C-alpha cells in the first residue's frame, strides 16, 4: 500500500511530497571506483511522503543528520530530489520552468537559522526586503516602498527611515530575524519553510518570533514548514509534527497527540531527553545509544533498531510501514509503545 494514500487529507493539499529520496554519492578515490563500481550513497532523504493543507503549520523534528533541512531545501527547489515527486498546488515542481517556475518562486519562501548570516551585510534593510520585488519585476518605486513597509510592519518592525537605511550589524538578533521574515513575506507567498528560525536567538525573544509566525498564518494565510530540533518549541506553534530519523518519517500526527502519547521509541527518546525546568520533577529516561549510525551504512530493517531498547529479531527483517495508530497519527514501528509517558 502506497503511503501517500494513507497520509492524504480530505482537502486538496497545497504541497504534496511523494516518496521522495535524496541520495548523495559518497566520494571515493579513483582506485576504489575502478575496483568497486557500485557507488555508495549518503541517504539524506530516503523515501519521505507528506502532505500539507493550506494554512497548516507542520513541525519537522529530528536530530542533526535526520534529513529535515534537506527536505526543506527540496521543497524550495534549492536541491532536486533523486527520486519521487513534489507537487505544489497541483503541479510537479521539478517540471516547472519559465513563468510557472517564476510563479512558484514567488509563492514559496524560506527563513533561515543564523540571524547573522541570513542577511547580506552589504545590503541595507530596505535593499534586503525590496530585492524579491525587483526580481519579480515590480517596477513602480512607490509600490515597492509601500510593500516593503507593509512587510516590515507585518513582521513587527517599525518601517521608519532609520530602519530602512540601517545595515544588519546595527540590529539585534531578533530584529534581524524579523527582517528575514519580512523578506520572505514581501511577495505574499503561500508556503514558507522556516529552518530553525529561533534556535540561535535568546530565549527572551524567541516566543516573539514564534507568535509572529502563528499570526502570519492567520493574517496572510501562510502555510509553514517549521524545521526544529527542539520539541518544546514546536508544541506551541505547530498543528502537526513529523519526526524524522535518518531520512525517513518515523512518526507523524497532531502535535498534542505526538507529544502526549508518542508511539515510536525514538520519538519517546527525544521527548524524554528534553530537560525540564521544574527541578522537583525527575524524568524517566529511555536508554538509547546516544550516537546514530551513519546514513551510509544503515542497519537492516528498522533504521532505529541499532539504538532501540525494545529491538527484537523481527525488527531487523524489514523496514516497517507507517501504521495509523489513531486518527491522523502514524507510526513506523512494529512494537509501538502504548504505556503513558511518565513525567
Amino acid at each position, binding site marked *: 500500500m502506497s503511503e501517500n494514500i494513507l497520509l492524504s487529507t480530505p482537502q486538496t493539499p497545497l504541497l504534496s511530497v511523494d516518496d521522495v529520496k535524496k541520495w548523495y554519492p559518497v566520494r571515493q578515490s579513483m582506485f*576504489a571506483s575502478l575496483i568497486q563500481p557500485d557507488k555508495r550513497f549518503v541517504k539524506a532523504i530516503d523515501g519521505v511522503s507528506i502532505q500539507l493543507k493550506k494554512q497548516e503549520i507542520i513541525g519537522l523534528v529530528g536530530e542533526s543528520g535526520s534529513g529535515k533541512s534537506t527536505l526543506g531545501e527540496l521543497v524550495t527547489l534549492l536541491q532536486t530530489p533523486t527520486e519521487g515527486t513534489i507537487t505544489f498546488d497541483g503541479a510537479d515542481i521539478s517540471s516547472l520552468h519559465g513563468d510557472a517556475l517564476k510563479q512558484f518562486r514567488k509563492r514559496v519562501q524560506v527563513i533561515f537559522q543564523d540571524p547573522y548570516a541570513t542577511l547580506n551585510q552589504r545590503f541595507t534593510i530596505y535593499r534586503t526586503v525590496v530585492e524579491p520585488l525587483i526580481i519579480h519585476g515590480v517596477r513602480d518605486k512607490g509600490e515597492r516602498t509601500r510593500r516593503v513597509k507593509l512587510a516590515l510592519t507585518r513582521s513587527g518592525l517599525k518601517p521608519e527611515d532609520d530602519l530602512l537605511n540601517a545595515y544588519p550589524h546595527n540590529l539585534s538578533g531578533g530584529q534581524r530575524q524579523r527582517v528575514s521574515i519580512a523578506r520572505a513575506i514581501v511577495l505574499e507567498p503561500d508556503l514558507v519553510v522556516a529552518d530553525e528560525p529561533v534556535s540561535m536567538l535568546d530565549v527572551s525573544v524567541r516566543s516573539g518570533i514564534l507568535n509572529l509566525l502563528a499570526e502570519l498564518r492567520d493574517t496572510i494565510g501562510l502555510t509553514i514548514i517549521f524545521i526544529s530540533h527542539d520539541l518544546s518549541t514546536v508544541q506551541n506553534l505547530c498543528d502537526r509534527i513529523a519526526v524524522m530519523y535518518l531520512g525517513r518519517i518515523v512518526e507523524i500526527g497532531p502535535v498534542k497527540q505526538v507529544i502526549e502519547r508518542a508511539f515510536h521509541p525514538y520519538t519517546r527518546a527525544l521527548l524524554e531527553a528534553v530537560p525540564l525546568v521544574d527541578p522537583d520533577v525527575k524524568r524517566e529516561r529511555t536508554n538509547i545509544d546516544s550516537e546514530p549510525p551513519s546514513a551510509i551504512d544503515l542497519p537492516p530493517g528498522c533504521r532505529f533498531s541499532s539504538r532501540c531498547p525494545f529491538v527484537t529479531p523481527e525488527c531487523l527483517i524489514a523496514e516497517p510501514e507507517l501504521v495509523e495508530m489513531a486518527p491522523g497519527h502514524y507510526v513506523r514501528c512494529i512494537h509501538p509503545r502504548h504505556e503513558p509517558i511518565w513525567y
Partner: protein
Amino acid sequence: MKGYRGFLLRRVLFGLFTIWVIITLVFVLFRVTPGDPTVFMVDSTFDPAVREEILHKFGLDKPLWQQYLIYIGNLLKGDMGRSFVSHRPVAEELGGVLPNTIILAFTSFILAYVLGVLLGAFLAAKRGQWQDSLGISLVLFFRSAPTFWIGMILLMIFSFKLGWFPSGRIRSLGYVTTGGLDKYLNLDFLHHLILPTVVAGLYLVALPVMLTRNTLLEVLKEDYIELARAKGLPGRTILLKHGVRNAILPVVTAAAVYIGLAIAGMAEIEVVFSWPGVGQAIVLAVRSHDYPVAQGAFLLLAIMVSVMSLVADLAYAYLDPRISYD
C-alpha cells in the same frame, strides 16, 4: 594508506599534464609568432649539412601536426636541438648549468623558509609591539626591492668596496676541481654562493614571515589554544607545539606555489652575479636569439616549478591528518 596512494597518483598525473600543457604552449608560441619558424631551430651560421639534418630531424618541412609529434618525441628523448651559439646539443648545454640553479634556489629557499617561519612566529608573539612593526617594515622593504638592485648594492659594498666576496661566477679563476661532487663541496664555491643566496633569501623571506605571522595570529584564536592555556601549559609550549604546528600547514601549502616563484625569479639574480644557471642561460639565449637554448631553458624551469610544487603538495598531505585525499 590507499587513499594517499590515489592522491599521489592523481597529483603526479596532473603534474605531467601541466608540463604537457606548457610544452604545447611553447610549441604553439614558436609557431604562431610572425616569421619563418625555421629561424627558431636553425641558424644561418650552421653549415648546410647540419642545417638539412636539423630541418629533417625536427620535421620542419612537414605539416604542423607532424612537427608537433616529432617535437614531443624529441623532447621525450631529451633532444631539444642544438645551440646556435655553441652548436652543442641544448640538453648538454643546460645539463651543465642546471645544478647551479638548483643549488642556489634551494639554499636560498630553505634559508628563507626556515628563518621566515621562525621570524614570523616571533613577530606573532610580539604582535602590536615595536619588534612587530620593525620586522614587518624590514620584510616588506626587501619584498619591495628588486632582487637585482639589492644584488647590485651588495656587490657595490661587499665586493667592489670591501672586497669580501667575489663579484660573480661560481668559482675563482684558475680554481681547478676534480669534477663530481667536489665541484660544489668546496669553500671556494661556498664563498661564491653567499651573496646570491643572501639576496634571494632576503627577497623570499617575506612570504613565510607574513604568512606564518598572520596564520599564527588566527590559530592563536582557536578554541584549542584557549584550552591549552586552561590546561596550564607554558606559553612557549602553546605557541610552538599548538600554534606553530597548526600554522605551518598553510605555510607549507604556500610553499608549493612559492618555490616555483623562487625558481622562476632566479633569472635576475643569476644575471647580476654572473651565476651560470638556467635563468642566466635563458636570458643570454634570448638576447643572442639562440632559440633552442631559450626554449629548452624555459621548459626546464617550468618542469622544475611543477616538480617542486608537487613535492610540496605531497608534504602537505602528509602533514595534515584531516586531509581525505579526495
